[in-house]
């Protein structure tokens, strides 16, 4: 069972998919990481060499992902709120921040715009 950044993945998982399980890594970032370490897009975790896995772990440890990233986002929102800015208020109210309409279609804003944003996720690290 290969470990990437202390997370265990089954051997059959695609490297791309396993990287994208980290908060803060999407398709673009995972593609660039894999290109940097010369991993083909359809590579599976089981086929990676141990050295490559270590490299990946080292790379991920240098990146701001998971809880670090969550904390940064929450800090920014709290900063806005403490300033008493409009954006901070909107965040606190759980309403759209960037001038969208509020008559309809604010489900996403209700779900996401809160002061402790991104609170749920892989926290058991």
């Amino acid at each position, binding site marked *: 069972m290969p470990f990437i950044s202390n997370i265990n993945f089954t051997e059959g998982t695609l490297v791309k998919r396993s990287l994208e399980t980290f908060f803060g890594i999407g398709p673009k970032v995972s*593609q*660039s990481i*894999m*290109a940097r370490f*010369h991993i*083909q897009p359809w*590579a599976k975790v089981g086929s990676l060499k141990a050295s490559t896995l270590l490299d990946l772990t080292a790379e991920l440890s240098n990146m701001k992902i998971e809880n670090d990233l969550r904390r940064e986002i929450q800090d920014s929102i709290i900063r806005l709120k403490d300033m008493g800015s409009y954006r901070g208020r909107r965040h606190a109210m759980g309403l759209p921040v960037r001038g969208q309409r509020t008559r309809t279609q604010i489900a996403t804003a209700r779900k996401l715009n809160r002061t402790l944003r991104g609170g749920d996720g892989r926290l058991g690290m």
Partner: protein
Amino acid sequence: MPPPTCLRSFSQLSLDSAARASMASRARAHAQMACFSTSAARYANPVSKKKGMAQTKKGNKTLNVKKGRNTVQDTGKRPAQGERKAARKRIVLTNDNALEVATLKDMTKADVLSEANQGRVLGIPEATVDALRAVEAFKTTQGWSLFRRPATLMRKETIELAKVMKAAEDDKKTLRRVLSGERLSGKSTLLLQGLSMAFVRQWIVINLPEAQDIINAHTEYAPLPDSQPTQYTQETYTASLLSQILKANNTAENPMLEKIKVTTSPALPLALPADATLKQLIELGIVNPEASWPVFVALWQELTQPGRPPIMLAVDGTAHMMKESDYLNAEVKPIHSFDLTIIRHFIDHLSGAKSLPNGGVILAATSQSNAPSTPALDFSVQVAEARQVDPSKTPRWNPYKNIDPRVMEALKDLHSPTAKEQLKPLDVIKVGGLSKDEARSIMEYYAESGMLRAKIDDGFVTEKWSLAGMGNIGELERASVRLRI
């Protein structure tokens, strides 16, 4: 109940005492359902749904459009991993129901390259079939499974290729040919014929069965150290290529690679025993994929030593090579196919940058069904084809098409005017339609195999020849053997 039914049932009741019970029960059932007036039902309030209770299904099936609801879990056994791919890629070369063709002769080493074979159907010898299987020259789309054993028609283009091979063998020339033609015109089969002739003549054969597999980023890649600009090796693919080379060229009849000793001292990351044979060298590369590329380079160096057999280097689906691959470099830019070592090796030989000192033929077959758009290759092939017809009339370059300058450079010999020679080093073999004699010959073979039940006369041959688009062999086979009505 409608009156006639009523009357009939009553009359039957009186007539047939045996059926009385059933009829009576049916009549009762009708009576319960029968309703002379529908108005009361229509004006009644609709039955309110009972909450919390699933509605029971009555009577007819209804269309269940929603996914995932009430779907039946099928309990059938799933195919094992890789089983479906194996079934898809399975190559069947015999048909027990087809008749043995008594007159069928095999290719022999003595006369396989002779011009007298034109228009004959020749069988492929057993050993060669195994070797061809090893280099994956047979395709699933080809009709090998229709006949008793693999046999091919020595058509005009085959003889042309045989001449090229003869010249390469005799004069130790390096001749390069691009096979082009319509869909189903037999380009891959001509490639296979070239490979089988090479096997029969005991050449070293290296075949890249499908260029797409090299560039579609399904195998590992790594930058080649000390290369400028950076090239990329494919360890797994190279290792499998080495095993394929070993399997195809080191048969029981002709253990060629076992006989040849390593004479140079290649720089390998792994130790090679002293006085090793080429077979041992290759096995080293197969066992250690990370060393496969240096092993391949060493093998090539060995094969180009003087006194070694000629080499046949072939690829199918050339167009895939002539574009950027799906691999990405460290800067997240696509890697050009020419920067992959295997493809660069092939392209160096196709473009004439490197030559084969012992003579040999480089074959590149194009495809019409699985080909990305490569304007540079298309243009080069068009120019070469036009030049064969009339050297003064060649098509002009379309400036609105986006060409790949590296491909244009590699195929320079194909589209730039060259000196008039009998056998040009790089040329196109245009695989066209069969002549009527050839068509007749192959149809007689079909008939003798029992796969075509018709009298083969001029009218029949011409009809099929015309319907197959002036002798397109794939269409001919489809029309006469596959689509028998």
